[in-house]
């Protein structure tokens, strides 16, 4: 178990900088998820921690030791790749044992660890197969198995579930979470899927265009997004964003807000139907326990509201909508959060 500390880490390809001085601390034993839109630099950051990518500037320490100059193999970490990167010419057993034999570990110790990993991941009967004879989920398990046999101080995951179908993804998510609970090793996990991020992370780092937007627990990120980017990125469906000026918004009128509020964000579950401003229902998505109601206000502003699954609302209906100002989020002109009602919440 080790902490990971990034100090002003930068990455540039030629003159083109893609990571702009990232400072980040991953605590020992923490499950840190790096999340962000594609191309935000999250994979690059992970690969720099792994030692697969050069660092243009800054420091990376693992377990209190600067590893800038250490090759990947000496950083005592494991990595699970998006494509699994299983060695196609080796059996599952060899795939698991390969890294250990490189460490010149005694044979019986290798055997013990491989058997243990196979037991944990329930791949015992696959041991003599080649990767091409495995299903997607099985490959995924082997890839994870290869990571855990080394008993590293740090696990790195690069979108490990993105190649699985929806059902399997949910299942593996649970298994990964269980694995984390059992091992308690520090994990850094890259994904673009915010459900994965929310469900698994101890803390989440939101990256955007090579900068960290916010680091926090899923709770903090959801309830106190530091800026508009995080607010809209975290949460599904997305937060509604209303332009504000002069203490109120165009659609909902004066709200007595401070003058520096430029945007008001309301999560769909905080919109209340039945009173307030009139809008037109343009689409209704029925999910069983709840429904999503797409509304268009007279100004043309689009809104998405969540309502109880039993609510009888149809496309084309007129609907009234309102929200509790205390449940809303407020952002200044530069996009940063204005802590208007945070204390109350």
């Amino acid at each position, binding site marked *: 178990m080790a902490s990971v500390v990034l100090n002003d880490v930068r990455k540039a390809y030629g003159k083109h900088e893609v990571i702009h001085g990232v400072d980040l601390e991953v605590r020992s034993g923490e499950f840190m998820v790096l999340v962000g839109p594609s191309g935000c630099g999250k994979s690059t950051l992970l690969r720099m921690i792994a030692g697969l990518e*050069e660092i243009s500037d800054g420091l990376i320490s693992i377990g209190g030791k600067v590893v*800038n*100059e250490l*090759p990947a193999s000496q950083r005592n970490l494991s990595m699970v790749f998006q494509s699994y990167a299983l060695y196609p010419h080796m059996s599952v057993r060899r795939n698991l044992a390969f890294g250990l034999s490189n460490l010149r570990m005694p044979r019986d110790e290798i055997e013990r660890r491989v058997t243990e990993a196979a037991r944990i991941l329930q791949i015992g009967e696959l041991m003599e197969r080649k990767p091409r004879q495995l299903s997607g989920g099985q490959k995924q398990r082997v890839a994870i198995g290869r990571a855990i046999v080394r008993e590293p101080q740090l696990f790195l995951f690069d979108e490990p579930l993105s190649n699985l179908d929806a059902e399997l993804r949910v299942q593996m998510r649970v298994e990964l979470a269980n694995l984390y609970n059992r091992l308690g090793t520090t994990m850094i996990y890259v994904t673009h899927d915010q459900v994965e991020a929310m469900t698994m992370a101890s803390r989440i780092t939101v990256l955007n265009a090579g900068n960290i937007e916010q680091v926090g627990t899923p709770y903090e990120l959801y309830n106190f997004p530091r800026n508009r980017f995080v607010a809209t990125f975290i949460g599904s469906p997305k937060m509604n964003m209303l332009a504000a000026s002069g203490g109120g918004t165009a659609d909902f009128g004066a709200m007595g807000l401070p003058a520096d509020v430029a945007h008001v964000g309301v999560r769909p579950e905080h919109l209340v139907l039945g009173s307030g401003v009139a809008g037109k229902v343009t689409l209704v998505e029925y999910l069983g326990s709840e429904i999503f109601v797409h509304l268009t206000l007279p100004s043309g502003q689009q809104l998405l509201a969540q309502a109880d699954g039993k609510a009888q609302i149809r496309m084309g209906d007129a609907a009234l909508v309102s929200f509790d100002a205390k449940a809303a989020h407020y952002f200044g002109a530069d996009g940063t959060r204005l802590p208007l009602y945070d204390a109350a919440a």
Partner: protein
Amino acid sequence: MNRVIRKNLAGYAFLLPWLVGFLLLAIGPILFSLYLSFTKYNVINPPQWIGLDNYAYMFGRDARFRKALQVTFTFVAFAVPAKLVFALAVAMLLDKGIRAIGIYRALFYLPSILGGSIAVAILWRNLFNADGVVNTILGFVGIDGPAWLADPRYSLWTLIVLAVWQFGSPMLIFLAGLRAIPQELYEAAEIDAAGKVKQFFAITVPLLAPVIFFNLVLQMIEAFKSFSGAFIISGGSGAPLDSLLFYTVYLFNEAFSFLRMGYASALAWVLLAIIAAFTAIAFWTSKYWVHYEGERG
């Protein structure tokens, strides 16, 4: 140790065998031939510096040089694409599960094993004589074929056919490349209702692009340097009427028959420049159509 230094160290460690060979055995002779290209050198006596005279003669007065260029360019322009298309088609045919496939593969490779041996030259002459096997077959369909190798109008084309006939090497490389394409991709395409043609252009060509590129570049280089076939079949002279005067045949004669090693060296460097230009163009355009699985875009 600094990571950059370590990287260079690893890179050069792996490069070392080649580098030693290149610096010790290859570059010296190459540069020496460049020097010779500015000399008059009959091999028997020491080279005499004559500046650009060789090049001036080549571009100014040497009609056979121009003829050799014309013959060689024609050969490259037709033999290379034809050979590649043929090799790829046969490789794809032999890639699929047909009975006795191994035997066919071996048989199709045989002509390439024969190479430019004397036997091939003799046979090729017999095949394409005025009363040879080819004309006998053409006779069945009512075509009165000419003496293919004897007639300067047809001799080069006959040699192009010979070159295409020896398509074994690119075929083998294509085969190796085809084996690296995952079968599931075709299955997936099948499900997506992509026809064979579509599959070829959507899967085979893009995934085979690095191999196609390799074969294209190498076959082009080889074609520019093509020697044995024309040399043996024309009895070393490029006959009839210089229609088989391949560039390297001309070069060889200048060097070894007429002992003009200096001039031959100049010829070699002009050819080198031509090949290098075409290769550079190929590499430059490859950026747009060759993508490597192992490399991030």
